[in-house]
């Protein structure tokens, strides 16, 4: 590299604009640190400790919520799709889509979410691969999800973690998408809705056969989606839906809220696309919730009581040095990871645990449990207090409860 190009790179770095999501990351990181300082009353060194631990552990523990995030974010501008198409139409007609690559664009973001769908002979979902860009969750970073045989594997590239969970809804949702873009069923659906007075359908077929046919469905004011407009773009030669745009009426103008592009209809997808185990680094941290019973069984305890028990048993396990047990109670994290994170703290005894209260973020559907422990801090016994340890039901393992969101 010559000096000129080297200095040019330095200058380019200096002139680089800071992406909007980096502002957000900075703010989140800074605020989070500040909050941890305000909460902590312990000696200085211990605060440092606590902060590092929290940021590391929280990264992994948050993993289990990602599938939910994926489900919610697929076609986020059209959340009613799965409900409308999940079951009703599957028994009425068989779609003709056998494989598909979808690029889902959000306004203001260059990088799309991407979905690769493979269906079997009966039209049921066989394999799914999802790419979630970093902008979707800056703190998580980019993720790849592969679904097969009722299991979803989520690879958190940034966190170098691979999470496996049981998952059925993802397939159902993808099936809904296939119905929606099936060349035959897509039009049938729109015409059916027009006959029911829900939408007004307009078709613009350009004389130039290279231009796609635009099928515009505008929802009527009295429909369930007033102000909404969907435009399907259909290739004049193949008659395949190549794209779908969705608009919402705002201040008397239709504003685009999303665009999906559909590629590679019925072209075989390389099986390696669905072999995530071959793709992840050898040292990836693996958390498999399908091969173990994660968390604690609720049995006949109330939600509040089982939440307290989970936290109590977690710290009992740490006091006993049973990191496998502690990991099981924390999203099923591997013992060596728990040991790495907590092994340096000498927990002496539990002073108090509970009572459980509502989680400050209701969407988590969790509870928070306060607790006080005694720990050894360089030969001195000090109290270690946590106000809000999150506990909730294990994802797709009803009746079992786990710590989530870090300690």
């Amino acid at each position, binding site marked *: 590299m010559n000096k000129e190009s080297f200095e040019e790179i330095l200058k380019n770095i200096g002139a680089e604009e800071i992406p909007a999501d980096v502002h957000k990351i900075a703010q989140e990181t800074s605020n989070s*640190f500040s909050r941890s300082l305000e909460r902590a009353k312990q000696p200085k060194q211990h605060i*440092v400790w606590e902060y590092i631990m929290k940021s590391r552990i929280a990264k992994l523990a948050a993993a289990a919520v990602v599938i939910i995030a994926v489900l919610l974010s697929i076609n986020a501008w059209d959340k009613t799709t799965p409900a409308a198409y999940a079951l009703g139409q599957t028994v009425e007609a068989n779609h003709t889509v056998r494989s598909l690559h979808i690029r889902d664009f959000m306004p203001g973001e260059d990088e799309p979410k991407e979905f690769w769908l493979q269906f079997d002979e009966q039209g049921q979902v066989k394999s799914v691969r999802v790419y979630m860009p970093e902008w979707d969750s800056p703190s998580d970073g980019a993720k790849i999800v592969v679904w097969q045989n009722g299991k979803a594997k989520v690879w958190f590239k940034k966190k170098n973690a691979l999470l496996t969970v049981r998952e059925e809804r993802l397939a159902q949702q993808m099936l809904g998408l296939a119905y929606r873009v099936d060349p035959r069923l897509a039009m049938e659906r729109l015409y059916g809705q027009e006959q029911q007075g829900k939408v007004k359908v307009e078709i613009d077929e350009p004389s130039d056969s290279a231009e796609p046919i635009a099928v515009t469905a505008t929802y009527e004011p009295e429909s369930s989606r007033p102000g909404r407009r969907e435009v399907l773009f259909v290739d004049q030669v193949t008659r395949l839906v190549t794209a779908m745009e969705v608009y919402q009426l705002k201040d008397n103008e239709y504003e685009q809220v999303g665009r999906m592009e559909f590629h590679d209809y019925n072209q075989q997808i390389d099986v390696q696309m669905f072999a995530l185990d071959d793709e992840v680094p050898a040292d990836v941290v693996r958390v498999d919730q399908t091969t173990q019973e994660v968390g604690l069984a609720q049995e006949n305890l109330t939600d509040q009581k089982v939440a307290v028990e989970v936290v109590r048993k977690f710290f009992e396990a740490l006091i006993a040095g049973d990191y496998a047990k502690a990991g099981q109670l924390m999203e099923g994290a591997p013992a060596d990871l728990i040991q790495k994170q907590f092994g340096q703290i000498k927990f002496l005894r539990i002073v108090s645990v509970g009572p459980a209260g509502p989680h400050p973020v209701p969407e988590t559907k969790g509870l928070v449990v306060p607790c006080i422990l005694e720990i050894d801090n360089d030969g001195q016994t000090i109290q270690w207090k946590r106000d809000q340890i999150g506990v909730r039901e294990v994802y797709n393992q009803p009746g079992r409860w786990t710590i989530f969101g870090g300690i």
Partner: protein
Amino acid sequence: MKQSERLGIFEKVRAQYSMFLLSVLWKLTGDRELFTEAMQYTLLGMWEHIEKLNGRKAGAYIYRIALSANSRAWRNRIGRNGEFTRSRIDVGKDPSERLDRVELAAKVRKAISQLPDRQGQAIVMRYLEQQDYEAIAGNLRCTQAGARSHVSKALAALKDKLATLA
């Protein structure tokens, strides 16, 4: 110093230098994960040295803390897998050129993280913050000639480091 007093100073400094840290750490890392880690280490460093941040020299300390945090974040990354992640910077004209530039930028950033303290500060002030030599001299508390010397030495050191990284 009382905890409440420490917290007060920390919040004041955090607010005052938030944009500076955002800008410098992003330019030094160019990668969201590295940036987050460097930001965390910087905040930790600020808290650990909060007594020193309550005076006129606060800015100079923050500089050192931020650069040290950046080096630490890079060391962690290098120790983890030795790989560079590709940032989103877009300085090239075609994709292959862009990729080369991105990788080169990552190498330059990594090399900056390995510079001695004052050379690192000098290069950051001169190129990443685009300060003139008068300002750099003021910040480094040296003459303008001294500032030029630091920048020049830093460039030479970077060139050597990049040769070994290539």
